[in-house]
């Protein structure tokens, strides 16, 4: 089922993940969160990783982003191994991550401030990215005044402002309602096309994965392995209207076929854990 070249990085890969495994020692034994995971992303590509909750997506996100060490395997950007956080890889987190004490503009300017850019320069660049995510007019507002979707756009703009070669996002729209999620997906696609931004999106949402991606990697549940790669050959430019097309339905069905089995295993494992009286880790 796997593509034959899945474990060897393509020659023109920008990001390559090779044979990555991660084990967590826990009181109930060693949990293998990710096992022998390999894939690569070419420059300009939009790739999604989909899997049921608890399958190891965030673990993989933290490994690629450099926040989590102590794993086996290799992560490389343009052929060079990376360890620790890396300016080539910009991360957008699942949880609410804007700084509540900074205005929208100052949030987006944060990475530029850290990099030591002068005030005028960083305000100009931040304003550009605030506008890019459609938040012009809200520069002086504080996150508390914004909706959840707007705050997540601030977080995306902040990461984009650091101009990473790879945009890495962990379920960035998980907390949003379906309509907002679809419209925000359009925005992300539009930005991705405009910047030719290489993007790796981690999600548990089928529609989102198919709507946005050039390729979808399906992950297995416990241990998290690569189950299958599905090419999404829907035409570009795309927007959320695509969800009503027949081809879209086919792709969703195809991925659901694989995902369903994993999600069922995840639910069964949760039930077994509750019966054993164990805690949800």
């Amino acid at each position, binding site marked *: 089922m796997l593509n034959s070249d899945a474990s060897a990085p393509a020659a023109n890969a920008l990001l390559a993940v090779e044979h990555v495994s991660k084990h967590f020692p826990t009181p109930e034994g060693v949990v293998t969160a990710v096992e022998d995971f390999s894939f690569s992303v070419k420059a300009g590509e939009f790739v999604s990783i989909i899997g049921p909750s608890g399958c190891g997506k965030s673990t993989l996100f933290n490994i690629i982003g450099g926040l989590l060490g102590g794993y086996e395997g290799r992560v490389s950007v343009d052929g060079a191994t990376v360890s620790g*956080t890396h300016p080539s890889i910009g991360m957008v987190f699942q949880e609410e991550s804007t700084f509540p004490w900074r205005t929208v503009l100052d949030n987006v300017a944060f990475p530029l401030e*850290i990099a030591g850019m002068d005030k005028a320069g960083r305000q100009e660049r931040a304003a550009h990215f605030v506008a890019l995510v459609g938040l012009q007019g809200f520069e002086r507002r504080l996150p508390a005044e914004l909706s959840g979707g707007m705050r997540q756009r601030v977080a995306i703009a902040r990461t984009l402002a650091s101009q990473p070669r790879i945009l890495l996002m962990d379920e960035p729209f998980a907390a949003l309602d379906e309509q907002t999620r679809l419209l925000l997906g359009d925005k992300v696609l539009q930005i991705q096309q405009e910047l030719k931004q290489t993007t790796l999106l981690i999600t548990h949402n089928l529609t989102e994965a198919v709507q946005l991606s050039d390729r979808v990697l399906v992950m297995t549940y416990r241990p998290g392995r690569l189950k299958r790669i599905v090419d999404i050959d829907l035409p570009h430019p795309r927007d959320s209207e695509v969800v009503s097309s027949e081809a879209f339905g086919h792709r969703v069905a195809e991925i659901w076929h694989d995902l369903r089995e994993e999600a069922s295993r995840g639910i069964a494992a949760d039930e077994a854990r509750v019966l054993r009286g164990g805690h949800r880790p």
Partner: protein
Amino acid sequence: MRLKDWARSRNGARAVGVTATVAFFVLVEALIRAGLVNQFIVPLPSQIIASIPRIIAEEHVLDRFLQTMQEVLWASVMIAVVGISIGVLFFKFRGLRLACESWVGAMAAAPIVLLYPLFLVIFGRSATTIVMIGFVAGLAPVILKTIEGLAGTRAVLLNVGRSFKVTPSQQFWKILLPAALPSVFVGLRLGLIFAMINIVGVEFLINFGGLGQLINELAERYDLPGTYGAIGFVILTSMLFFDVTARIERWLRPVE
């Protein structure tokens, strides 16, 4: 409905507060005049108000007020600088925190004012004694709340910093400290209350300095309206300090 909205607005809330206070005084006045409350324990509110020009002119209450304000100011500056620094040290060095945190907690609960003879021996019968007691009394909550605020910084905010490769000093100044600020200010306000109580209390006890001493003297002369009038100035002091801390907090971290 519209009245309710108005009451929730800033000016509305203020007006409700003032009205309630006035109503309370009117009620007390009525109870005393009706003979339900003993006039020799609680003077008439109208007498208290009438006493204010007198204690200003004859007892120099404004000088006393300034003196107490100054002592509270010194104590609070020391509490803020030393308390926040110790809190940061405890946060950085886990061992230190484990060793000392419960002692600091105990210190917060201890009636430090009873140690005043010790302070008298060290600093003499002076404003320094009063400021030092206020400082020691108000220190603990600032330390504890600073640790709590720093330790409570959401992990994802620290991860955002790490993903942008912040230096340790950038992490502290740009993430940890602003995240901890609301909690630090809760500690400062508590510390300020403790310091005020102890400062006025020690002025009273050692019969030295500002409003506390004046209250002592007036009470001994059985000038009840004057005593309560002077207590009014103590309340004014704490209101002013609360207002100033709130302003500083809003200036440092403009949330809401």
